[in-house]
């Protein structure tokens, strides 16, 4: 089972993930329409690119925007959660070795201690985000089954990874669960809200261009 999951099936899931998200990005940009969106994307491209860049990088910095600063606790949880989910899988030694064995590519890895710390912090932040979802009426009213399912999936992914790294007796069970969740995430990403992995950049670029071209970007930079 484990061999199958980390062998050919893994490459299949990766393919779905990358091709699927790639298609979504292409479709997104092809579906933009200067008349319907009322943004002169191509004729004012330099202003658009400036706005797009500012809109993306400001939002990638913790506390970089008014919105992030207004909700410091959530912002902290949000960044810890996402850093754990992006940085750890990319730079964890176990993952990098697997990639090297598979396709020969390799890159530096995180010290195990730091990886553990980031993963556990991300898990706790995720739990916090989950509690907030139910504790605050303004978030509860928005929450649906899919939101909860995705959160449970990512938390299971993190928890099983953390447990697998402990090398306890039940090591193999945790590892299998971890790999299984990993597959689900990769396969589901293009078709669910997980697509925000790529679409976050798309919508931020779009609104950045909107502000950069049309809503004042030719006179001042918007203060995100």
């Amino acid at each position, binding site marked *: 089972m484990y061999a199958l999951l980390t062998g050919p099936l893994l490459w299949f899931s990766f393919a779905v993930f990358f091709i699927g998200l790639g298609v979504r990005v292409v479709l997104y940009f092809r*579906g933009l329409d200067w008349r319907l969106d009322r943004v002169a994307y191509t004729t*004012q491209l330099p202003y658009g690119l400036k706005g797009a860049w500012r809109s993306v990088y400001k939002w990638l910095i913790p506390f970089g925007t008014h*919105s992030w600063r207004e909700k410091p606790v959530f912002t902290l949880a949000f960044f810890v959660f996402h850093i754990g989910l992006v940085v750890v899988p990319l730079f964890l030694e176990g993952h990098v070795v697997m990639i090297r064995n598979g396709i020969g590519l390799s890159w530096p890895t995180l010290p195990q201690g730091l990886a553990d710390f980031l993963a556990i912090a991300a898990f706790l932040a995720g739990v916090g985000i989950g509690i907030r979802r139910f504790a605050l009426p303004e978030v509860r009213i*928005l929450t649906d089954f899919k939101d909860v399912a995705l959160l449970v999936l990512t938390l299971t992914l993190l928890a099983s990874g953390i447990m697998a790294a402990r090398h306890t007796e039940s090591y193999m069970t945790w590892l299998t669960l971890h790999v299984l969740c990993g597959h689900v995430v990769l396969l589901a990403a293009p078709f669910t809200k997980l697509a925000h992995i790529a*679409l976050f950049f798309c919508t931020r670029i779009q*609104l950045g261009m909107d502000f950069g*071209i*049309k809503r004042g970007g030719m*006179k001042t930079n918007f203060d995100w």
Partner: protein
Amino acid sequence: MPEGKLCNKKPVSTREELDALLADSNGRQYYAEMEQLDVDSDALWATIQKTMKSRLKTWLEICAHCGLCADSCFLYTVNEKDPTQVPSYKIQSTLGEIVRRKGKVSNEFMRMCMDTAWSKCTCCNRCGTYCPYGIDMGVMFSYLRGLLHSQGFVPWELKIGSGMHRLFRAQMDVTVEDFVDTCQWMVEEAQEEWPCLEIPIDKEDADIVYMINAREAKHYPEDIVEAAILFHIAGENWTMPSVGWEMTSLAMFAGDWEACKMQVETIYSAMERLRPKRMVATECGHAYRATVIEGPYWAGRPDGKPPVECIHYVEWVAEALETGKLKIDPTKKIKEPVTVQDSCNYVRNAGLRECTRIIMKHIAEDFREMAPCKEHNYCCGGGGGFNGIGRYRKQRNIALKMKREQILATGAKLVVAPCHNCWDAIRDLEEEYQIGIKWSFLKPLLIKMVEVPPHLRPEE
């Protein structure tokens, strides 16, 4: 009854239709007919498929339901943090639902959507700047308004408003003759004090073409004369067009995109006819947005710009003060604490946050910022058509509370509001809550303070 006599899917196209609507007091018959109006689900779905592309579709789909937009919306805050006022909820439960049901929605549902679109969102676009994905509910509600309009579910006043634009190319029944006459007699009266004053109509190749809000022609013509006096003192070579002088767009509030296009094309052809170097827009937020920001797209101009460079009145004043075209008598500066209302339409949505600060530096001794201010300021409470819709007066009055708190916190006694809508909202705010403030456009303040060059001084 699939279509009513007053409430139907057809926009106003004749004077008789308009008069019939106007004769219906408070839209009583209109709203009664609306309860019987059929929803054309096929047409609704066809429109959505044709016009709802990447941007809106993705916005609806990827909203993380994180609720970060909640506090960004003043309507959520002033309605005691009612969860149904969370921007994301408001759009998901209306537009989102129409899309999910592929347009198969009931009359009752459409009326709920109408109430939400016009009384729970002023299209101020603040939430869009607080959402990590940049999901802009103001844009989405404006789209929803368009859908509702196409099905006849639009507030009575706005059906009239966009009908006015269709018939008169103005939000009110001001004809070309009315407009030119108004300018003429106003200037004649003012000439007693300002001997050489004029309002040049249809002058070609001037430096400035000045365009206004039809309410100035209809209800406060003194505003036009004040503009004329200030241009006169500043020595500007300016003009106004006899046709195409009105730059507001109630049609934009109504979601009547066809009427928006008709309106803005009239203005652009005036620009093309008179070939001015620049256009100066009067002190109005939504007029500026309609003509300068959105208008080029309605008219199908690929560069997204009007035919000539357009600036808002605050830009002209700031420039005139900085270059010395207008000089302020230092002894006449405003002494009492004063604050300024940043109109969403030309500040958050057009980048003009600095001009009013430059102006304040010249004219006020004790200028106080609202918190938050500039592009993060809240809507005055009456934007997006909210001010003018009788059906939602109660909700509008609640909406004013945010501005009340912001103004009170500054301690200012005077609010400068260089926007017609904001000006109205603040007037209503004082009427409703009596917090002891005054409010003003810039022009009357400037006239009281500006130094008049000796050769223009009226003879004693």
